[in-house]
């Protein structure tokens, strides 16, 4: 099958008063129609900025280079007007901050129907009916009434459901779902993840799920891309990654997944240490300071290698950790 979205050599840089932040470094990945890709990594690893860069939504101090071919057309070479033909219609993104991503001054109805009216040419009445359907699909109770309300009248979890409903309005080819990690409690988070999984499976669209938690993606995705300090450190199918992680960081992420079959399901095995300072990346492997397997060769930054069919890793180790 042909590739739906292909990202090549994506770099994202931010100019800050303290210096340049190189937030995404040479990201490559591809997405097949109907496929679900999970992008996993700790906070600050560049997951969100990579997605925003593809959609031309970086903050003013950010700049991106590289290519992102959607059905063969490079999104990153497009003008904002050209991008607008795809944003919200072919590619929808659900942002990670439910508390601030909806416009507090407009009713939910206004924020939903504008999408259907603009991209699908629906009239106001039809657009409203369609919006109500979508709210029902994400299980907002009493959508006919609640569609008239404003964001502050909804809880964080409900707002995120509304964001999902907005994303689904035009039945996009690609749904990018950035998991809210703050502002919501864990139960609500996992309900939302299950909901995204459900709508993606039902409509057979391709999806990119962004998360901190490898546990979340296990049952939901086909492939996993692990990011660390702006780079891909490992890539493979869910089965491969779980059965045999090839990068010490991935190993750490798997060990930090809370497991129900163990007494201590409180993520006791969180990876020690912190991600490197993006303003002053150390030379060599960027995971070196936290890696239990580091050896002399690690003073040299490892290249991405292909240890097997459809697998990638960025580590000097010969054997799996």
């Amino acid at each position, binding site marked *: 099958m042909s590739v739906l979205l292909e990202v090549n050599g994506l770099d994202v840089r931010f100019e800050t008063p303290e210096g340049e932040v190189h937030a995404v470094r040479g990201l490559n990945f591809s997405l097949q129609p109907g496929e679900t890709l999970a992008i996993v990594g700790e906070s600050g690893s560049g997951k969100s900025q990579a997605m925003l860069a593809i959609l031309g939504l970086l903050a003013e101090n950010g700049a991106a280079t590289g290519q992102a071919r959607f059905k063969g057309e490079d999104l990153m070479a497009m003008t904002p007007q050209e991008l607008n033909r795809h944003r919200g219609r072919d590619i929808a993104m659900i*942002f990670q901050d439910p508390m601030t991503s909806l416009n507090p001054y407009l009713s939910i109805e*206004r924020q939903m129907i504008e999408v259907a009216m603009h991209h699908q040419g629906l009239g106001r009445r039809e657009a409203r009916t369609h919006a109500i359907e979508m709210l029902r699909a994400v299980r907002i109770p009493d959508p006919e009434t609640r569609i008239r309300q404003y964001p*502050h009248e909804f809880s964080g979890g409900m707002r995120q459901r509304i964001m999902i409903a907005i994303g689904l309005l035009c039945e996009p080819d690609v749904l990018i779902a950035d998991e809210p990690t703050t502002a919501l409690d864990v139960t609500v988070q996992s309900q939302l993840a299950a909901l995204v999984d459900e709508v993606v499976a039902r409509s057979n669209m391709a999806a990119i799920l962004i998360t901190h938690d490898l546990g979340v993606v296990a049952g939901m995705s086909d492939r996993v891309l692990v990011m660390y300090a702006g780079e891909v450190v490992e890539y493979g199918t869910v089965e491969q990654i779980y059965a045999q992680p090839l990068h010490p960081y991935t190993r750490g992420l798997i060990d930090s997944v809370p497991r129900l079959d163990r007494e201590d399901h409180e993520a006791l095995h969180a990876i020690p240490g912190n991600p490197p300072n993006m303003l002053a990346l150390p030379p060599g492997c960027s995971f070196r300071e936290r890696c239990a397997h580091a050896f002399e060769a690690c003073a040299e930054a490892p290249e991405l290698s292909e240890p097997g069919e459809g697998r990638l890793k960025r580590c000097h180790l010969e054997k799996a950790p």
Partner: protein
Amino acid sequence: MTLDQGLVRQLTRRLLGVVPTLLLLITVVFFLVRVAPGGPFDTEKALPPEIQANLEAKYHLDEPLLQQYFRYLGQILVLDFGPSFQYKDWTVNELIAQGFPVSLTIGGVAMLLGFVFGVGIGVGAALRQNSAADFTTMGFAMLGVSIPNFVVAPVLILLFAVYAGWLPAGGWDWSWRSAVLPVVTLALPVIAYIARLMRGSMIEVLHSNFIRTARAKGLPERQVILRHALKPALLPVISYMGPATAALITGSVVVERIFSIPGLGSYFVQGALNRDYTLVMGVVLFYGVLIIALNVVVDLLYSILNPKIAYEEL
């Protein structure tokens, strides 16, 4: 409960809350004008004592201060500001009715221009942030805010009345030609101020997450600005406009003097110079009531624009 009922209730509550403020204002003004040295009937030549006494008796100035104060409060209750001391045969109510429409017209038009141009220029500059056009307009806006009326007015008179001869240098005959220069003088700093305010708040709003959401929906930039950004960006401008409108429509003392316009501002100056107690108090109270009323209007507009406030008030 419907929004309308909520608004009515909110309005009633606000109006009741205004009573103590007004009472305080009346009291302060009443005693302040009397503390100022000099009296209404002091002239170059001292009046014969019996005439002075007659006059004071006629206007109750011979009564103890407290008695005068309560007399005045009683008058205010029936919306009567009393007779002017200086303009014989005129009541203060009549003087205000005479001067206010003039000031209201000049100030109202100036405010309207200030709003329309200020918002337009501010939005334009925000959308071209840090471009040459942005720096130029904001440079002019800075000038507009800092150059006082008494400098702008004579310059305009020189250019358009004296040299070009297109417009009258002063006077007021309810024609548009007599209104242009005073209106422009008043409007320029308002345009400049609103433009700066609007630019800042628009830039801030454009950085919000919900604007990024609007862009992610693939909406045209026009819609992103007009539908999603304009309303929140207008809020600071609206709060500025309450008191600013009150100040403008009650007549700028400086501008009305320079252009010899018989507005409320002129009466106020005359009243103050002549110790015309009732006139000064009347104009100040009128101004106070307008400020309060316009602030209530601003609050109402706010709650209409901001669903969160409307919701909390209900």
